[in-house]
C-alpha cells in the first residue's frame, strides 16, 4: 500500500463505497478538492448492489411523495445522459388489475404530470402488444419513462472518474474511530480489513455516506442519526421475461415492480423492519419468496413457471421519522446533516436518505455543503459531464468479430476498447453465461480494485449468469492467483467463499433446475476437485 495516501492532508474524506459515496467522491474531485474515499469492504456491497436496478421515472412516488417524484424524474433524465451505457431506456408500465381500483389511475397520472413525469394512459390491448408478458387480465395501463440502470457499473464509473480527477480510493478500509482535535473532526482511524493494519487519514471535512451503516458511523462520532432499516428481498429470474418495467398502479406495496436488466428479470421487493444489528447478514426467508412469487405472477404470469436463479435482500437506508411499520410512507427525501450546526461537531457531514436514483443529487448536496464550509466556489458539474464510458464516441466493432464484444461494450461503454482483446488468449471466455473474457478479467483486476472473485462478479458480472459460477469461478481463480500474486491458500479461501456466497442466493430458491444446477456445481467443485471449506471440520453434523 502506498503510504503517501496516509500522509496527505485531504480536503474531504468520504466514508462509504456505494453509489452515494462514489458520487460524492466524484463531485468533490471534480470541484478540485483533494479527496479520499474509504470503504470497509468492497464497492456496492450495501443497498447499492442490492436493489432492483430500476431507473425510476418517479411515477411510483408521484401520488405519495411529490418531492421524491420530481427528484427522480430530474435525475432520470440526467442519468440517461451522463451514464448512457449503464442505462436501458425501455420505459415502464403501471398496470391496473381487476382487483385494483381503476380510479387510482387518474389520480396517478395527474400526480405524475404535476411532478413533470410524462405519463400516458394506454389501451390495455396496446400494453399487451408492447409488453407481451404482462398480465393479460389488466384493465388499465399507463406508460412512464422508467428504465433500468446497472448500479455496479454506475458506481464504478463514478469511482473511476473520481480517480481521474485525482481522488484516492481505499477499499477494505474500515473506519474505527475519528480523529478529534479541539472539538473538530480532523479525519479517521482506519483498519485495513485484509491485513489488519491500523492507519489514519486526515481531512478538513469527513462525509458520512455509509448508507444504513451511517447510523453506526455517526454513533462512533458521538452523534445520533436515527435510521430505519427496512429489509427488501428480491428474486432474479433466469432470463428476460419482460422488456419493459412493470409496476402496479396502486399505492406501493410488496413485490409490485418487475424490472428487466442485463439478461435477467428482477421482482421485488418485500419490506420488513429489521434490527440494525442484523443488516450485515441478510437471508431471504421462504415467506418472502412466497410473497414475491405470488405477487410477481400477478404482474407477469410467466413468473410462475420461470426458473429463478437466486434471491437476495438489501436494507433501505431510510431516516426514521415516524413509526410506520411498513417503511413505505416514509419520504425517501434526501437528508444532509451538518453536524456542526446540528450537534456542534465541526468537520462532519452525513448524507443519507434518498435512493439510488438520487445518488448524484445527494452527492451534489453534500459537496455543496462541504464547499461552502471550505470556501470553495466551484459549481457542481456532475449533471452535465458524462461518466467514463459514456462519452459520445462510438466503439468500432472489431473486424474479426468475436462474440464477447457486445457484452464488453454493454458493461464498459466507450471504455471497452481499453480492454485487451488483441489475441486469442485475451478473448478466451472465463465466464460463458455472461461472456466475460480473460482480457476483461485482467482489465478489472488492473483498473477496478479487484482481488477476489466476488469483486470480479460485481465489476464484470462473472458468475452472475444461469450457472452461478459452475466453471468460471475456478478459471477466474487461476487468473487471480497469477495476476494478484495471492497465495494459493488465500485464493482457495476466496473460491470457497465465492461458492458459499453463490449458494446463499440459490438455496432460498433451491428447487427445479436451480437445485439440479447446485448439485452439478457441488459435483464439480467438491467431488471432482475436492475443494473443502476452510471451516470444514464441522462438515459432518448429521448422523
Amino acid at each position, binding site marked *: 500500500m502506498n503510504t503517501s495516501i496516509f500522509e496527505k492532508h485531504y480536503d474531504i474524506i468520504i466514508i462509504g463505497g456505494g453509489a452515494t459515496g462514489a458520487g460524492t467522491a466524484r463531485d468533490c474531485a471534480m470541484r478540485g478538492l483533494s479527496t479520499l474515499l474509504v470503504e470497509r469492504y468492497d464497492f456496492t456491497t450495501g443497498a447499492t448492489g442490492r436493489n432492483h436496478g430500476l431507473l425510476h421515472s418517479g411515477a411510483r412516488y408521484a401520488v405519495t411523495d411529490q418531492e421524491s417524484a420530481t427528484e427522480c424524474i430530474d435525475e432520470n433524465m440526467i442519468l440517461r445522459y451522463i451514464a448512457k451505457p449503464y442505462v436501458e431506456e425501455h420505459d415502464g408500465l403501471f398496470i391496473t388489475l381487476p382487483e385494483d381500483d381503476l380510479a387510482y389511475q387518474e389520480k396517478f397520472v395527474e400526480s405524475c404530470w404535476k411532478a413533470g413525469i410524462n405519463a400516458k394512459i394506454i389501451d390495455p390491448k396496446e400494453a399487451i402488444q408492447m409488453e407481451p408478458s404482462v398480465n393479460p387480465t389488466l384493465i388499465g395501463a399507463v406508460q412512464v419513462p422508467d428504465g433500468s440502470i446497472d448500479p455496479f457499473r454506475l458506481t464504478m464509473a463514478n469511482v473511476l472518474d473520481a480517480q481521474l480527477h485525482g481522488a484516492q480510493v481505499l477499499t477494505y478500509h474500515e473506519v474505527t474511530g475519528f480523529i478529534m482535535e479541539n472539538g473538530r473532526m480532523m479525519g479517521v482511524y482506519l483498519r485495513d480489513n485484509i491485513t489488519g493494519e491500523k492507519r489514519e487519514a486526515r481531512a478538513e471535512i469527513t462525509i458520512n455516506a455509509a448508507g444504513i451503516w451511517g447510523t453506526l458511523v455517526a454513533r462512533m462520532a458521538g452523534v445520533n442519526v436515527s435510521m430505519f432499516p427496512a429489509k427488501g428481498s428480491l428474486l432474479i429470474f433466469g432470463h428476460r421475461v419482460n422488456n419493459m418495467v412493470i409496476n402496479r398502479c396502486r399505492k406501493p406495496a410488496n413485490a409490485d415492480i418487475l424490472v428487466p436488466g442485463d439478461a435477467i428479470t428482477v421482482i421485488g421487493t418485500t419490506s420488513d423492519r429489521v434490527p440494525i444489528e442484523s443488516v450485515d447478514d441478510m437471508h431471504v426467508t421462504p415467506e418472502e419468496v412466497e410473497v414475491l412469487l405470488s405477487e410477481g405472477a400477478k404482474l407477469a404470469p410467466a413468473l410462475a413457471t420461470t426458473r429463478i436463479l437466486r434471491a437476495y435482500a438489501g436494507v433501505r437506508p431510510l431516516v426514521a421519522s415516524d413509526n410506520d411499520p411498513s417503511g413505505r410512507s416514509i419520504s425517501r427525501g434526501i437528508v444532509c446533516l451538518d453536524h456542526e450546526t446540528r450537534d456542534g461537531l465541526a468537520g462532519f457531514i452525513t448524507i443519507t436518505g434518498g435512493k439510488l436514483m438520487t445518488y448524484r443529487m445527494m452527492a451534489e448536496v453534500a459537496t455543496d455543503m462541504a464547499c461552502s464550509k471550505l470556501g470553495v466556489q466551484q459549481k457542481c458539474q456532475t449533471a452535465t459531464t458524462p461518466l467514463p464510458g459514456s462519452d459520445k464516441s462510438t466503439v468500432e466493432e472489431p473486424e474479426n468479430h468475436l462474440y464477447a464484444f457486445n457484452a464488453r461494450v454493454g458493461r464498459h461503454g466507450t471504455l471497452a476498447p481499453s480492454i485487451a482483446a488483441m489475441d486469442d488468449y485475451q478473448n478466451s471466455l472465463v465466464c460463458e453465461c455472461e461472456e466475460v473474457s480473460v482480457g476483461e478479467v485482467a482489465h478489472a483486476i488492473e483498473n477496478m480494485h479487484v482481488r477476489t472473485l466476488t469483486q470480479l462478479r460485481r465489476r464484470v458480472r462473472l458468475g452472475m449468469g444461469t450457472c452461478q459460477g459452475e466453471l468460471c469461478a*475456478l478459471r477466474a481463480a487461476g487468473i487471480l*492467483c497469477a495476476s494478484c500474486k495471492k497465495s494459493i491458500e488465500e485464493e482457495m479461501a476466496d473460491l470457497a467463499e465465492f461458492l458459499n456466497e453463490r449458494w446463499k442466493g440459490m438455496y432460498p430458491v433451491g428447487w*427445479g433446475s436451480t437445485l439440479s444446477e447446485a*448439485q452439478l456445481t457441488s459435483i464439480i467443485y467438491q467431488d471432482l476437485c*475436492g475443494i473443502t471449506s476452510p471451516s470444514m471440520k464441522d462438515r459432518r453434523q448429521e448422523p
Partner: protein
Amino acid sequence: MKFDYIIIGGGLSGLTCGIRLSQAGKKVAIISAGQSTLHFGSGSLDLLGYDNEGNIADNPLDAIGRLNENHPYRKIGTERIERLAEEAKTLLDDCGIHTTGTAQKNHYRITPMGFLKPTWLTLENYATSPSASELPWKSVILANVAGFLDFPIEFISDGLGKLGTRTEVEIISIPALKARRHSPSEMRSANIAKILSSEETLNQIAEVLNSMEETAEAILMPAIVGLDKQDSESSLKQKVRRPLLLLPTLPPSVPGIRMQTMLQRRFTQLGGLYLMGSMVKEGHVENGKLEYVTTSTLMDERLTADAYILATGSFLSDGLKSNYERIFEPILNLDVTAKENRADWIDPNVFRTQPYQAFGVKTNERFQTSLEGQTLENMYAIGSVLGGHNAIQQADGTGVSMMTALAVANQLINNL
C-alpha cells in the same frame, strides 16, 4: 418391442447393468435421455472414500459395515461387495477400460485442484499415489496447453508442492492447438482431444514434451488425449521419453467420455439396443407390475420386458426432480425418500451436509421400487437415483452405481 430387460438411463449404472445382463445372453434395451454424468468424471471410480465419520477409509470394505443402514451397500453386504468389486473390474477390462486399484485398499487420485482424494480404480496412465501424504515422484514437469483454462495449474502445482514434489510448469502448444484457441469458448478438453487424435499432432506434442530439459522423473499433463479410445493416449506415451501421466480436468471429462463410449460400444457389441436421446414418457403399472413403457421418440410403440431397471441418476440427470412443493421421481412417481419441507432439503452453508444429496427412490433390500407403498416387483432402481448416501461426502457415487448395477443384474440372472 419386447426385451428381457429394459434399463432406463444409459450412464455408468445403466450400462454396467446392461453389459452384465447381455453377457448372460439376455436381450436388453437401454433408453437414455441424453449423455451421462460420466462426462464430469475424474478418470477414477470411487468405492468408498470416507467412512461415516468423514475420515478417509483406508480399506473401503472395512468401512462398509459401519455405514448408515440406509446406504445401498448395506443392502448388498460387505461380502457381496467384495465379489462385485472384482466383477466390476473384470467387466471394465472386458470393455477395454483398463484400471488399477483394489477394493481392499484405496489409493489416491490427484484432483484438478491438486488435492489427493481416496479412490478405488483409476484408469491406466492417470497419475495416482498410494499414499495420502506424499507422491511417488520427487520432481515432475507439469505441462499445460497454452490457453486451456480448465486445468488450473497454479492450484495443482501448489498442491503437488505441498506433498513434497517439486514441479516445473511448462506451457506448451502446437499449431493445430493454436488455431483451436481462436474460439473464445471451445478450447475445451474434449475439443483438444479431438485435435490430439492424429499421429501428426501427437508427434508434435511428443516433440515438445521431449525437448524439455528439466531433470524431472515424470511429466504430468491434463487429460486431453484419448477421447474415444485409448490409442492416442498409449501412442503419445510411447513417443514421450519420460513417464507420462494424465490428470483430470474440469468438465467435459475426456476419461469419462471415453468410459461412456467404450461401455456403450461393448453393450451394443453384445447385442444390446441403446436408444440415445430418448426419454421414457410413461409407464403402465398393473397389479404391482410395470407392464410397458413408451418413449418420446418411439411414440406409441410399447416397450415391454420381464423386468425394468431405473438408472436415471439424481437431480442433475433428471432422475429426481423437484419443484416448489416436492421432490419426486418423474417417470412413475415412485416412492422417494425426501423431506417434505423445502427448508429441510438444504443447509445454508454449501460445504455442510446438503440433505437433498441423499434423497432418492425408495427400494427394498432387493432394490425393488415401490409406488404408493406397494412394491413394484419387476421395477428395480440402481445408481444415483437411489438415496441413502451422500456421494459428495463419502466419495462413493461411482461405486454405488456399479455395485448396485451388478447386484441387480446378478439377482435377475440367477432368478433370485
